C-alpha cells in the first residue's frame, strides 16, 4: 500500500517439537496501518504475535523494522524497538492490584536520597487516566485483579499497551471477553492509535469488528499465510472461504 513499511516478516518458521506451527509466513505492516490477523483455532496466530513480541523465538526467518533487520529474542528487545503486546493469556498477575499490573516492569518511582520508592500516587493517577480511555468500570484500583470480572481484567491488560509511546501494538483477541459497549471502546481506541501513526496488528474471530477496523486482513491456515485482502474489495464470505479452504482470493491474495 502507499503507507511506509514499518514491520516486515520474511519467511518465519516455527516448530513445536514435531508440529510445524508457522510455515514460511511473510507479512508487512505499514506505518499507522491496522492489520487484522484471522484464522481458525490453532492456525498459528498467537504464535506469530509471541514471536514478534519476543515472548518466543522463531526457528527461521527474518524480522525487519523500517527496513532494518532486527532480532527480537526477548520481551525487552521488543519494548526497546517500540513494540507492545497484549497476549491471549493477558499476562496479568492475579494477586497484584490494578495499577501494580499496569505498571509491572515499568514502575514509577520517586527518590528519597539514593533510595527509590514506588510512587503509588503517580501510578494511581496515571492508571485512572489510562482506564478512562476505555469504557471500564473498575471497582477499586487497590483490589487484586483476581477479584475482577474477565472483561475488567481484559481492559486492565489493554490499558498497559498505552503506557509508553510505541510504534506497533499487537493485540491477541482484545475483545474476546468484552461487552458490546466495551468492545466498541476498544475499536475507537484503535482508531485513535491509528490517527497517531501507531500500527496495530489485531487478532480477532469477530469478522464484524475486523471489517470495521482493519485496513487489511491477513488469513492464516494451519501455519501458512493464505493471503491478505482489503476489506473494501472483499466480502465476509470471501474471508470465511479463505479461512476454511485455505485458498487465496484473487489478486490481493497473491500480492503477499
Amino acid at each position, binding site marked *: 500500500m502507499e503507507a511506509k513499511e514499518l514491520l516486515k516478516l520474511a519467511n518465519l518458521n516455527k516448530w513445536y517439537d514435531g508440529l510445524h506451527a508457522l510455515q514460511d509466513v511473510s507479512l508487512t505492516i505499514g506505518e499507522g496501518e491496522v492489520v487484522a490477523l484471522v484464522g481458525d483455532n490453532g492456525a498459528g496466530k498467537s504464535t506469530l504475535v509471541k514471536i514478534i*513480541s519476543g*515472548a518466543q523465538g522463531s526457528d527461521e526467518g527474518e524480522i525487519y523494522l523500517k527496513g532494518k533487520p532486527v532480532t527480537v529474542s*526477548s*520481551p*525487552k528487545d*521488543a*519494548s526497546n524497538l517500540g513494540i507492545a*503486546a497484549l*497476549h491471549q*493469556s*493477558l*499476562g*496479568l*498477575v*492475579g*494477586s*497484584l*492490584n490494578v*495499577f*501494580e499490573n499496569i505498571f*509491572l*516492569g*515499568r*514502575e514509577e*518511582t520517586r527518590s528519597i536520597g539514593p533510595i*527509590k*520508592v*514506588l510512587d*503509588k*500516587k503517580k501510578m*494511581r493517577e496515571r*492508571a*485512572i487516566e489510562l*482506564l*478512562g*480511555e*476505555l*469504557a*471500564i*468500570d*473498575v*471497582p*477499586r*484500583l*487497590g*483490589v*487484586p485483579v483476581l477479584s475482577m470480572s474477565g472483561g475488567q481484567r481484559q481492559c486492565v491488560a489493554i490499558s498497559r499497551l498505552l503506557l509508553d509511546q510505541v510504534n506497533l501494538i499487537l493485540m491477541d483477541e482484545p475483545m474476546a471477553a468484552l461487552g458490546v459497549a466495551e468492545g466498541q*471502546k476498544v475499536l475507537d481506541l484503535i482508531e485513535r492509535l491509528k490517527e497517531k501513526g501507531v500500527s496495530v496488528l489485531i487478532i480477532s474471530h469477530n469478522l464484524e469488528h475486523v471489517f470495521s477496523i482493519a485496513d487489511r486482513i491477513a488469513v492464516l491456515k494451519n501455519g501458512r499465510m493464505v493471503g491478505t485482502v482489503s476489506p473494501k474489495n472483499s466480502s465476509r464470505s470471501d474471508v470465511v472461504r479463505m479461512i476454511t479452504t485455505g485458498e487465496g482470493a484473487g489478486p490481493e491474495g497473491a500480492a503477499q
Partner: protein
Amino acid sequence: MSVSKTNVKTGAAGRADGAFTFEGLGITAVLLVIIVVFSFVNPRFFAIENFLNILTQAAPFIIMAVGMTFVITAAGIDLSVGSILALSSVIGFDFMTSGGHPVIGVAIIIVVAVALGVLNGVLVAYLVIPPFIATLATMVSLRGLALLHSAGTMHYGLPEAVAFLGQGKVLGLPMPVLIALLAALFGYWLLNFTKFGVYCRALGGNKEALRLTGVSVKRIEVLVYGFMGLMVGLGGLVMIARIDSTQATIGTASEIHVIAAVIIGGTSLFGGKGTIYGSVAGAILLAMVANALVIGGADFFWQLVVTGIIVLFAVLIGNLREGRVSMAKLPLFGRTKS
C-alpha cells in the same frame, strides 16, 4: 469523554493495600486470645519480664521469617536456613574466638550466609531445580560442612561488642528485639514500597507474566534467596550472641519454625502475596506456645509436636480462607449440613 473517567473509582482514601489489614487483624486476635488463655492457666505467663523474654526468644525467628516471607511470596521455599545458620556461625565464631577482629567476624557471618543464599538462588533460577529439592540438598550438604568444620566442638566466648547484640539493652529493650523490629520494618517497606517487592509478588503470582514484561525473572529469584541468606546471617548472629555459643548442630529444625511462622501469619504457600506483619506475629505466636509449654513443665519434644500441628492448622485455615477447601467438604464437619 469525561463520563468514562467517572467510572473509575479509587477506593477509600488512597489505601492500596486494603486487603492486608484484615489478615493482620485475624492473627492479632489469635495472639490476644492466646495471651488471655495462657495467663488464666498460669499467671506467671502474664508478666512484662516474660513477654520480653518471649520476644527475645522469638527475635532470630522473626528476622528469618522476614526473609522467608519473600521466598514463599515468590512461590519458593528454603529448607536450608538452619544449615546456613550453622555453617556461617561456626566459621565466623571460630574466626573471632581465635583473635579475629569482631567487625570482620560479623562480616564473615553475614557474607557467608548471603553467599549460600545466592547459591540456593542460582540452583533454583539458573539450574531450574525445584526450590524444595535444591534447598533440601543444600540443607544436608551445608550441615555436613558445618559438622566437618566443628563436629563435637562447642564454640564460646564472643568479643563483648558482639555479645552485646544478643545480651545488651537499649532503652530497656533487649537488642535482639530491637534488631528484629528493624528487620521487620525494613522487610515491610521492601515488600510493599519497592520494585523488588512487587517483582517478588509477581514472581509468585504469575512468573510468565513477569517474564513478558521484560523483567529478568532469574535475577529476582537469585536476589530473593540472597536476601533470605542475609536474614539468616542476621538472625544467626542474634541467636549466637544471645547464648554466646554456637556449634555445628545449631539451628536444627529451625526451618520448620521459620516456615511455620510465615504460614501462620497468612502468607500464601501458593505464592503471590505475603504479609510481614503476619510473619512477625506468627513467630511470636510460636514462641509464646513454646514458652507456655516450658512454664507448664512440658517436655521440650512437645514443642516439636505442637509446632507441626499448628502448621497444619494454619495451612488449613489459609485454604478455607482462599476457598481451596470448603467446610462442607471436610471430613467430620461435612456431615452437619449440605
